[in-house]
């Protein structure tokens, strides 16, 4: 699915990743952990850029269009499948044939009643679930998500991560919370200063084994 060999990348002439090699197979549930600035976001974006046509991403802060409804935000995942004029018409007046599949996704995410509410007026958890709906509508199988649950409470986080694991085949997350990462992934990749320093199955790992990632 994702295959990076000795990749070096960065912005504006400054390298953020140094010689990173990662191989992720279909069906894996991987979490990237590490201090902020360790290169998690860059790595996710890189993986996304190499597989844009069959991967969905939830960027940090979720990348939603606040003044559009939940329906439109989810529908956005498949804009490429319809002609432009049809998308314009659907923006002005949502078509029944398009609403139905989106409504189904929204129902599973508990957003049914909010389907035509602008995303800007939703709670953090609802926004996150809209972003997941969009990602699901777009790819349905592969999800990259950059710290998706760092702005919602523990209860919501667990609910959402469970849902993500149940619906997507392959899941790659960057995680702020190590406990949640251990609980909801089967492989942990630890980054430090732009390099992979831990790459291990989750089973049998204790939180303290990962402490070295957070030390200076």
């Amino acid at each position: 699915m994702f295959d990076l060999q000795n990749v070096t990348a960065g912005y504006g002439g400054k390298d953020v990743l140094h010689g990173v090699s990662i191989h992720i197979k279909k069906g894996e549930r991987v979490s990237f952990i590490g201090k902020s600035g360790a290169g998690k976001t860059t790595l996710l974006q890189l993986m996304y850029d190499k597989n844009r046509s069959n991967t969905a991403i939830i960027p940090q802060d979720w990348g939603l269009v606040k003044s559009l409804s939940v329906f439109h935000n989810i529908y956005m995942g498949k804009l490429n499948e319809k002609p432009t004029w049809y998308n314009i018409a659907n923006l002005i007046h949502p078509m029944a044939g398009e609403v139905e599949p989106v409504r189904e996704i929204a129902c599973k995410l508990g957003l049914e009643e909010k389907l035509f509410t602008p995303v800007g007026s939703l709670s953090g958890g609802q926004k996150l679930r809209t972003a997941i709906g969009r990602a699901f509508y777009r790819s349905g199988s592969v999800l990259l998500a950059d710290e998706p649950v760092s702005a919602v409470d523990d209860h919501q986080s667990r609910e959402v991560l469970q849902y993500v694991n149940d619906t997507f085949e392959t899941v790659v997350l960057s995680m702020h919370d190590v406990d949640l990462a251990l609980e909801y992934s089967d492989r942990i990749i630890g980054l430090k200063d732009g390099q992979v320093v831990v790459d291990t199955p989750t089973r049998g790992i204790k939180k303290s084994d990962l402490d070295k990632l957070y030390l200076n």
Partner: protein
Amino acid sequence: MAKGAVTPDFFATENLVGTFFNTVAFALLGVAFGSIAGFFLTLVFHHRAVKVFCAFIRAIHELFWALIFLQIFGLTPVTALLAIAIPYSGVFAKVYSEILEEADTAPLRTLHPETSRLSALLYARLPDSMPHILSYTLYRFECGLRSSAVLGFVGLPTIGYHLESAFAQGNYSEVSGLLILFYLVIASMRWWVRPKLLPVYLFVSMFAMRGGAEINWENGYRFFASDIVPHPVRVAENFDLTTMMGLLEWTRKLIMTQAYPGLLETIPLTMIALVCTGVFALATFPLISPLFFGARLRLAGHIFLVIIRSTPEYILAYIFLQLWGPSAIPAILALSLHNGAIIGHLIGRRTEKHELRQDSSTGLNLYAFETLPAVYPNFMAFLFYRWEIIMRETAILGILGIHTLGFYIDSSFSDMRFDRAFFLILITALLNIGIDWFSGFLRRRLRLRTTPDDGKS
């Protein structure tokens, strides 16, 4: 004249209602068409050719466009409509593109790579930029009202037409009456400009304008195919060396006798006006700032600035020229007051968000040591933005008799030498494009932004 100013006469003008209706309708239709055309240009604005085209059409002042279209459509609503819509679409294309560019790119990145450009724009960029776009369009409508009023000076049936004739007859009460009504129209915009009412307004305006134009296609064809072709080429039988030499001589003469003297007057006048604009803005922004004055004095400050910035610089210059005769001083004064009031207003509003320490100084010390340093980058950015506008206006004030480029253009039009007029308009446009580019370069170089620093950049 002073007596006229304090004894406004609101009913001296013939067909007062019709005049205001025309002024508003031309502005409404011109801005609406300009906004729609500008939006479509935004879709292709990433092409260099489109950028240059937009820079070119907005570099030519509404009055020059009006003078051109007068030759084709005569004194009809079509002339007024095009004179506003064309330069405004160039402005809209640029500003809409800038607004869309500043929008959050995160939603865009989540889309499938094969999503069409237009779909991506409409879904991922436009919705969250809409409030900015609407408020800018509304601001432009206010500018459109001023443009529309000024179009009266070339004979179109708007307020400017009656202002000029009232002035000519020394009927100063009528002048002040018209101006006061015009301020009221602008000041009350927030109550009568409603998105829901817009279709109604547009429909009424279109309906009232219909049949206004008997378009003389022959005139139009002759204008573009023959009138604006340089004289030596037009009269030549074939394009040979003699014609070529004639054209060179024609160009040389036009540059030496008109373009060069015009530039020599336009550029220094612009620079002086720019500096005076800055001084006036820095002197007046405290008038509306809560850091310096209480609510009652601030209200007076607001009214003062609203009046000055609602009066088009063209009309201000016209009034000052009536008072002091033709010289550069009235022009500089008009330009500095109008533009200074606009910047003063923007900067003053910005200081409303400043929070003071409990032990901060007051009065002049506060101004010099805290407020001014805080707003200065913003202020400079606005000033550079207005540079191009001041240049455009300086050129146009030539029509009033100051020997800037507009003077030579206007004389060429009245002599029916359209080839010369067209050539000089091109020079003026190039000058504007140059200033626009240079001011953009300086702003980037000095990292000046008109938006408050949000720590992101």
